[in-house]
């Protein structure tokens, strides 16, 4: 009974929240401030080194966001592997013997690899880029994993950790290189903008895929735990 009342109360509150939010959106939509950002963006596109505006924003204008965001991803990966069991990859329980999956694998994996490559390459001037490509690559990995293909590099070890941070470190190095030339953090040298962005995107793709995959395979749980502080044990 109390539970039902509470549910009703929360529901009402959420409906009210939506209504107020919608009203605000309506009010803002009717009374817009004059943002100059899109114009500014198109004026500066030529200096960004890439043709696709979203990529330009992500990897040049607001690259600090992206850098930190990859950091967030790496954190999730670290937290994931910190809890995983070391010898989980050959767990037979995980191996699917579905013939459909096998068939899917035979056809899909190469296709998906190609798709990932395309997405990465397209990012410079068309929709696509490191995240999408990384996600597709990770999905490929998930498929392979479900199909029982051993992927030893995902065993928590130096290699996995190196893979996790490869993209991040390259990005970071590119960010700091400009400082040596007396420029701001994350400022690319003007004539190297495009190749740098491409390199960053490629390694990011790999690392993003690695992190996502590591999070997926790290699920089997390590039993060992710390005692709580002050627990006599």
């Amino acid at each position, binding site marked *: 009974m109390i539970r039902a009342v509470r549910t009703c109360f929360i529901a009402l509150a959420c409906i009210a929240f939506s209504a107020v939010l919608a009203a605000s*959106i309506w009010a803002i939509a009717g009374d817009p401030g004059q943002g100059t950002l899109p114009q500014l963006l198109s004026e500066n596109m030529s200096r960004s080194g890439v043709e696709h505006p979203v990529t330009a924003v992500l990897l040049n204008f607001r690259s600090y966001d992206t850098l*930190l965001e990859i950091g*967030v991803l790496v954190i999730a990966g670290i*937290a994931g592997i910190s809890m995983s069991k070391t010898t989980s990859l050959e767990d037979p329980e995980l191996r699917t013997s579905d013939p459909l999956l096998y068939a899917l694998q035979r056809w899909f994996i190469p296709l998906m690899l190609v798709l990932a490559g395309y997405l990465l390459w397209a990012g410079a001037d068309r929709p696509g880029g490191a995240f999408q490509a990384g996600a597709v690559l990770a999905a490929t990995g998930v498929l392979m994993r479900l199909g029982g293909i051993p992927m030893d590099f995902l065993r928590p070890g130096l290699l996995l950790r190196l893979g996790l941070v490869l993209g991040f470190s390259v990005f970071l190095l590119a960010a700091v290189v400009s400082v040596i030339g007396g420029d701001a953090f994350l400022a690319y040298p003007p004539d190297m903008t495009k190749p740098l962005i491409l390199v960053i995107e490629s390694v990011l793709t790999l690392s993003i895929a690695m992190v996502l995959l590591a999070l997926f395979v790290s699920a089997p749980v390590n039993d060992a735990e710390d005692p709580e502080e002050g*627990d006599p044990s």
Partner: protein
Amino acid sequence: MTLWLMAGLLFTPLAWAVLTLLTDFVWGRRVTWVGILVQVLVSLGLWLTVAQHGGFYYDLGGWGAPLGIELRVDGLAVTFVLLTAAVASACGLHAGVYIDQHKPWHRYFWPLFWFLWSGLNAVWLGGDLFNLYVGLELISLSAVGLVALGGNANALRASIRYLLAALLGSLAYLLGVALIYGQFGTLSIAGVVAWLDNHSAPAGPGLALALMITGLALKTALFPLHRWLPPAHGIAKSPVSALLSALVVKASFYIAARLWLAFGESLGSLAAAQMVGLLGGAAVVWGSWLACKQAQLKQVVAYSSVAQIGYLFLLFPLTYSVSESVSLQAQQGITLQVISHALAKAAMFLAAGNLILSVGSSRIDALAGVSRFLPFSLFSFGLAGVSLMSLPPSGGFAAKWLLLQASLGSGQWWWALVLLAGGLLSAAYLFRIYRASFAENPETDQFFHPSKSLEIIPMVLAVMALGLGFVSEQVLSVMALPFAEEGAP
């Protein structure tokens, strides 16, 4: 020079996160020592630079706002950068000895620690609303990872709860950012302020400010949104608890404060300001009351954080439609409160960790006899307590004095009563602990004596918190005009 300092400040924590990920715990510790040294020097250098030449905007990637992301390097920001350097290095050094190096998962402590540090720096310096969101997430996720590291079911429950609260808070904040961008077409705080200066305040984005501050209040654990905090801070390892209580909750509060001071006058309302202050007052009373009821040492300290956070939110009523000088007093008071609470609470958690290590139990009544055999850690705990009780000459007292002046000067005398009651209540729960330690235990010294390095670190922090009262004037003068919005882009 400034270029190098800025790059060092941004680069070091991220780079050290990568380096320490590739090593084991012991090597990670050595690498971390170097990193701490670099980071402390860089922070100090930047602080000195700003103290001499004043603050500036730093355009990342050479793109100024609104197109790019700008960092706002002013006196307040560098003070907090320096504070972070002090507290985080103390926690890092303490953790290097405190944490069991033989558990394989503890190697992941260092990268998470460094990511946390970089997130904190990003938040102190951030001048871009969305960038602040990413910084917040960086902090939240690494903090959750640290709480959960190697944890048992209770630790996991606490960290999941913490994660969900943090995510909900971030989403509310992001929703506010979306509305702000929809209204003003820019993400730069300075840009929005410049817009508001030239136009009359629109009706729509009031909700945006409310959403952002609510979300941040949830992440700061303002009453009644505080329930995730005590389990998470109580169960984490002591150096982690220290980091969380001292710095992590301050990051979200810092953003809320900056937003309020930038937009509050035009987008806020008196009722909202008083409401937030009321919740802060309730937090002081309720958090202290619960702290008195706890049987576990670290739970007392964690609930004390809930209470102390309450003080911070008195900033909202004390800066809304009051005179310039009162507002300044309130801002200075809150700044001192943030700094002194950070130092004192870190000292207290680290000392509590030492005490728990010594007596082998986390219960308060197990402390009987400690004052005879382990005076050093208890002394650190006590000195930190002086600051938390805001008794002179601590930084907490200086903060309380300024806040008292602000509340009396603005005619809002009821906040003065909250401040005084809060001081007495904190004495109530802290003296419970001292009292337990003074109880004579007829047995002889059976306590484990932690190594000197573990004992000295909290003492240094506690002395800093205590001495802050004497140098408050200097600290505040470096911050020249805290929260000043100078030079729109």
